[in-house]
């Protein structure tokens, strides 16, 4: 729908300004759509055509207006046009190259628009002709490859990438875009890598290159061998991987900055609120949508890199002091946050926020995630949040990533965004201590847990969240890392989650298997109870764990009653619930052991309300008479695998990204007047 509207709008604009004249190029297009071979009367027809400024709208609408039978008639001419476009790409005359690229864009789009339901083969036939398709596409890809890798104009390279993006997103479902089969055979992967490895070209085209790569990787991902997947997974050239990380980093930073600006705006006085309201009437809507779509594509690229390429994990921790970034040329279209930081280097105020000076992809990503996860009602944001958690899952499973997450020498202050809530004050950002990065991850998880207990319960996100915590704990247990983290916050968040599940049992059970989540949560406690000696930071923290369990014993009691009730009934949750009853054995043992002790202590000492210290004292002196049961497989977890569980999600995600990219590309490709001017002056 939006496509049609846009085109209509654009048509109107051009037609109003150019109505009286019929451009020469339009006449030439008409000739192509006539029956005759246009070169018959004018042997220099094709030469002349590519010297003419392209009228994309006309060409596209013409292609669309062609109906079934006509197609047969003009197919030869269209094939010829395609052929000459590809040939023109090899021309020295840059104007011709530009025009050919744009014409190709129009061709791909127009033909697809027309034949939405047609099979890929028909489209290929119409564009290139079956017999020649392979050769044509080979030529096209080779030309594009050499244009992208050559020393030519940057605008030309940018246009090449736009053409490729246009081609890749021309169908809603990327896997149905049969032409891409030729892009698989004639890989432009190396050209993309080259763009990413070079500092200046990365600055100008990095974003498009990364998005293109992310999309190509998702072509028939689950059905066939996609060479882009294979190649991406074996890249080990650090400058290239860094380049990719840098592009993602900059895009996410930009989003974070925009968000922060907006947030500050909203918190400003009445006047600023007013102006922002007025301003938002014009731009905010478009702007916001733009940023969301941007980030989904980038996030997908980040996911593919993290998931497919193990070497990329090191890039996550790669620090980027802003000095280095400031020296890289920045693309004219996207203002870069670093750009505006660099001149402020000498500003005495600025260095007070250390995050401005040293950041890395992981920190930026965590901040981004903290923003996106705040509000998951919007579908785009929900998708982003889910993808963020999937990426974190991959990171938490990776040994190297875990190593630097827990590195005691790499301390950072990470200012996560926290949702403003009625019952808590906004955290004072300045006081966040510098800690290993894993603390920020745990903070983020805790934050999510406490802020999303709502009626429209995001069960899927909660499961991922709890599993990420579990994976981190497994690593800590295995490596005996005693993280100085305020575990208490996590415990109370988890207990509150259990409480929420209990009080909304009926509504939740209609949609979700709450027992699975409850089991995971209880098993987190079991990790602490049975293996606490291997990863807790102090002996006091073990006492505190017991204190917290005993203090909140009612939640566990109620949970036990509930799961017992469900497991004794016959129903679909019987088995799931009985698992939880078994998992609760140690928690219940603790409660049953200490509660009488505490009560008798209070009775003996005639105290009605025991202080925390007194309870801890009771706990400390009564360990020895408590026996716990060792449970199986507490430190085992199911590894993340994209297929088959996540396949549907990614299919949908790629589809929505394709739509967004297509929308953006069409806008950008059409505004190439500047580019034409550039070349007309050169030649």
């Amino acid at each position, binding site marked *: 729908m939006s496509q049609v509207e846009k085109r209509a709008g654009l048509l109107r604009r051009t037609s109003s300004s150019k109505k009286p004249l019929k451009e020469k190029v339009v006449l030439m297009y008409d000739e192509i759509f006539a029956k005759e071979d246009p070169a018959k009367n004018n042997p220099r027809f094709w030469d002349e055509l590519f010297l003419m400024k392209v009228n994309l709208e006309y060409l596209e609408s013409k292609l669309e207006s062609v109906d079934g039978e006509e197609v047969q008639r003009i197919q030869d001419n269209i094939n010829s046009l395609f052929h000459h476009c590809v040939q023109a790409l090899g021309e020295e005359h840059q104007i011709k190259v530009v025009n050919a690229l744009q014409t190709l864009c129009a061709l791909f789009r127009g033909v697809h628009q027309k034949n939405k339901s047609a099979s890929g083969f028909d489209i290929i036939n119409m564009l290139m002709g079956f017999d020649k398709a392979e050769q044509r596409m080979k030529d096209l890809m080779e030309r594009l490859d050499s244009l992208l890798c050559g020393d030519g104009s940057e605008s030309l390279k940018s246009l090449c990438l736009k053409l490729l993006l246009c081609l890749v997103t021309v169908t809603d479902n990327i896997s149905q875009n049969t032409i891409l*089969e030729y892009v698989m*055979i*004639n890989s432009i992967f190396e050209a993309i890598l080259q763009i990413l490895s070079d500092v200046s070209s990365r600055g100008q085209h990095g974003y498009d290159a990364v998005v293109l790569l992310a999309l190509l990787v998702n072509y028939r*991902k*689950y059905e066939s*061998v996609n*060479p882009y997947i*294979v*190649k991406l*997974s*074996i890249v*080990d050239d*650090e400058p290239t991987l*860094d380049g990719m990380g840098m592009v993602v980093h900059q895009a996410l930073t930009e989003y974070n900055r925009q968000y922060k600006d907006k947030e500050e705006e909203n918190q400003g006085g009445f006047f600023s609120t007013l102006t922002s309201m007025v301003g938002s009437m014009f731009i905010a809507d478009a702007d916001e949508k733009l940023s969301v779509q941007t980030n989904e594509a980038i996030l997908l690229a980040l996911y593919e890199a993290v998931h497919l*390429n*193990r*070497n990329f*994990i*090191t890039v996550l*921790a*790669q*620090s980027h*002091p802003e000095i*280095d970034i400031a020296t890289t040329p920045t693309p004219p279209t996207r203002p870069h946050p670093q750009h505006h930081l660099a001149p402020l280097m000498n500003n005495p105020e600025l*260095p007070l926020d*250390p995050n401005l*000076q040293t950041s890395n992809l992981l920190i930026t990503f965590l901040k981004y995630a903290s923003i996106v996860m705040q509000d998951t009602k919007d579908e785009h944001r929900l998708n982003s949040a889910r993808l963020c958690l999937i990426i974190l899952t991959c990171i938490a*499973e990776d*040994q*190297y990533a*875990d190593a630097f997450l827990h*590195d005691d*020498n*790499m301390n950072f202050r990470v200012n996560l965004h926290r949702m403003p809530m009625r019952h808590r004050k906004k955290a004072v950002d300045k006081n966040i201590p*510098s800690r290993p990065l894993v603390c920020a991850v745990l903070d983020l998880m805790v934050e999510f847990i406490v802020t999303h207990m709502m009626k429209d319960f995001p069960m899927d996100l909660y499961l991922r969240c709890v599993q990420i915590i579990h*994976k981190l704990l*497994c690593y800590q247990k*295995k490596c005996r890392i*005693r993280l100085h983290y305020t575990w208490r916050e996590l415990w109370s968040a988890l207990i509150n989650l259990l409480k929420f599940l209990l009080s909304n049992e009926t509504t939740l059970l209609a949609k979700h298997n709450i027992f699975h989540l409850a089991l995971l949560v209880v098993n987190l406690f079991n990790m602490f*109870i*049975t*293996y*606490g*000696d*291997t990863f807790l930071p102090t002996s006091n923290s073990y*006492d505190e764990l017991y204190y917290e369990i005993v203090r909140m014993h009612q939640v566990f009691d109620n949970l036990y009653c509930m799961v017992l009730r469900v497991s004794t009934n016959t129903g679909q949750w019987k088995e799931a619930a009985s698992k939880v009853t078994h998992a609760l054995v140690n928690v219940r043992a*603790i409660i049953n052991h200490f509660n009488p002790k505490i009560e008798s202590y209070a009775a003996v000492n005639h105290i009605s309300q025991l202080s925390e210290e007194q309870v801890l004292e009771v706990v*400390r002196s009564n*360990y*020895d008479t*408590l*026996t*716990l*049961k*060792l449970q*199986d497989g507490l430190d*085992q977890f199911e590894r*993340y*695998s*994209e297929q088959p569980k996540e396949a549907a999600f990614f299919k949908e995600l790629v589809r929505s990204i394709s739509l967004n990219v297509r929308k953006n590309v069409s806008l950008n490709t059409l505004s190439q007047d500047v580019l034409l001017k550039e070349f007309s002056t050169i030649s």
Partner: protein
Amino acid sequence: MVVQSQSIWRKPTDTGSSSPSLSVCSSPSLSLPSTPSSSSCPAPGPAPSGTPPLGVISEGPGELSLVIDAEVAQRACQEVLQKVHISLMYQNRVDVGGSQNGAGPEPALSVTIVKPAQIQIREVEDDPGSVKSARRRQRHNPSKQSWLLRLFESKLFDVSMAISYLHNSKEPGVQAYIGNRLFSFPHDDVDFYLPQLLNMYIHMDEDVGDAIKPYVVHRCRQSISFSLQCAWLLGAYSSDMHISTQRHSRGTKLRKLILSDELKPAGARARRDPLALTPFCPAVSGSGEHGLSPSKRTHQRSKSDATVSISLSSNLKRTASNPKVESSQDEPVRLAPQREFIKSLMGIGKRLATLPTKEQKTQRLISELSLLNHKLPARVWLPTAAFDHHVVRVPHTQAVVLNSKDKAPYLIYVEVLECENFETSSVPIRIPENRIRSTRSVENLPDCGMTAEQRAGSFSTVPNYDNDDEAWSVDDIGELQVELPELHTNSCDNISQFSVDSITSLESKEPVFIAAGDIRRRLSEQLAQTPTTFKRDPEDPSAVALKEPWEEKVRRIREGSPYGHLPNWRLLSVIVKCGDDLRQELLAFQVLQQLQSIWEQERVPLWIKPYKILVLSADSGMIEPVVNAVSLHQVKKHSQLSLLDYFLQEHGSPTTEAFLSAQRNFVQSCAGYSLICYLLQVKDRHNGNILLDAEGHIIHIDFGFILSSSPKNLGFETSAFKLTTEFVDVMGGPDGDMFNYYKMLMLQGLIAARKHMDRVLQIVEIMQQGSQLPCFHGSSTMRGLKERFHMSLTEEQLQLLVDQLVDGSMRSLTTKLYDGFQYLTNGIM
């Protein structure tokens, strides 16, 4: 015998004809060192050694032996030289008496004369300087110098003498000769005096410069590190000149020449082995050109060329992964990688200085270094290291910012791979940080090398490769092998293993029970086991890093390094100083090293630790850190103990072997540094500048205030050296044996130092030339230094002096005041 010897010593007074055997052989070797005959001198006259006419000069027949007391001889030589030097001051007159005096009253003199056959003088023939000097030499009366020549040719004539002669002689011929003679000394010996040589080159007259230049140029051709060393020192020591003269000065020109890299490798030659130095022999090349012509290059040479070019490009970008770029990179990169490396390190220091807090500095440092890592390995090295190596990685998370008020010195650890020769050995290939994972991507993915034909048209479904279980199975957490430290706890019985590995076997249905008390107990036990470290303090990040035992740190870093498995892996560390002038430090290092070798030679068990200094410019440089040592300030701050109690804590009770040896080390090092502090007038001796190593030695660092300079304060630190009651307590109190031992060591050390005073003075004196350094402020620097050796005192008087110094320092109120002052102003305890 006696007569014979007399005739020799009388030689200079003759007209040169009375002793033909001498002049025949000696004059060609002196005046024609560059002709072919010199290298193949047939030695027609005296045999190399021991031949009656020239061999040994001695008084009695009983001493007719080749084994002479080197010490005595050397001293004698020096005295002779001293006097000869005086005589040469008046070179226009034939000062017969002076020379006679020089020879006459020296009864104990024994000199072994060696023949020039062993003195290989190599020279670049077309060097205008040497031609000129050769001509000049012939102008002078050769007879006048021939006896001197004998000394020069003698075995005892060492670098120290050569340098002092070069400095003191005003005779161009002599200077030119010594310039040539430098070629025959071992490289390492000359390298020690490199600052002196270059300072003379910069600041003394043309003749000295002309004499030194060929040697420097020759060495630069041979070695990249020598080239850079020279360039850095030339820059640093030229900086005190007025800016207008500096630009056109000789030193600046030579520096430019070196840095322009026109001094390319000279030819196939075993570079590092002084023994393998073959004399230059023009007969081989046959042409008039010097033997550095390409025609002489051997296959070895071409090999080294190739490897030299595999190196960093000028922007320090690693090109190893891209062979095409490499091969196109040619010669100009000879010096570039190392210069870029150093420049990067300095750039980091400059940027760190702009950040306000230690925490920010540390964070920034780590991130900057991680970027630096991307450009490694490369043909770069740490000049402070004692062996050849290539830097492969900087474990960036280990770097720490050191405590300094306004500058940002920092300490980095550097992983290197030892190699034969850093110039010719090939640069190690890069191993990615995550080497373990590199196996996965390649092996677990199905072959993707499908041909286009196979793929074309075949849109059929191909088996899915994306089997995550397989793809990710290489290194997941589940399979992670963790080496757990041996647990020595008793309560860790058979149950304890359950906390390590969970039971996954499904057969055992029997439930396993554990006691909660055990878990709790294990937790506290394991926490107690972690070794005592200083607590992490964001304001003093270096304390933790420095407290960790070096061996431990090496092991830890090695484990985490992708290069750690290589047998030639080594860990080095270096302090990078940016904004500090290290020239005084270098001077102090040289004096310390000279004194160390004097004490070693004299078998006085004084202990000092000269740490290497690299001067990069007048305001930057690098320092070799003292490993396993923390400052007294850090000791006191973190342990909150007195020094003696800290010793007891670290080494055990006073009667144990460990404590006693630590105490002995403490005393020996105290004595050494007390003398150093006295002789060099080292000031600013607060506890932050005194380190304590793991064996109990103290080590003084920071020689920013020596000789004539002292910190501008209220006349504090008037005592000779720092000797607090805490120090004396560690020694066992002022009445203990160890304290007496301390004083005795000082006396012995002073006597030994006095004996070789000239070797110390010479280092300082030459560096004074043209220097604006604060340590040379005023006119009495040298006189004061000389006086502190107390040449005139008897040993009894010296002992008295030492007692006075020690008493004075102990009673000194100012030391205590100074510590208080430092505590108030800099927070140093």
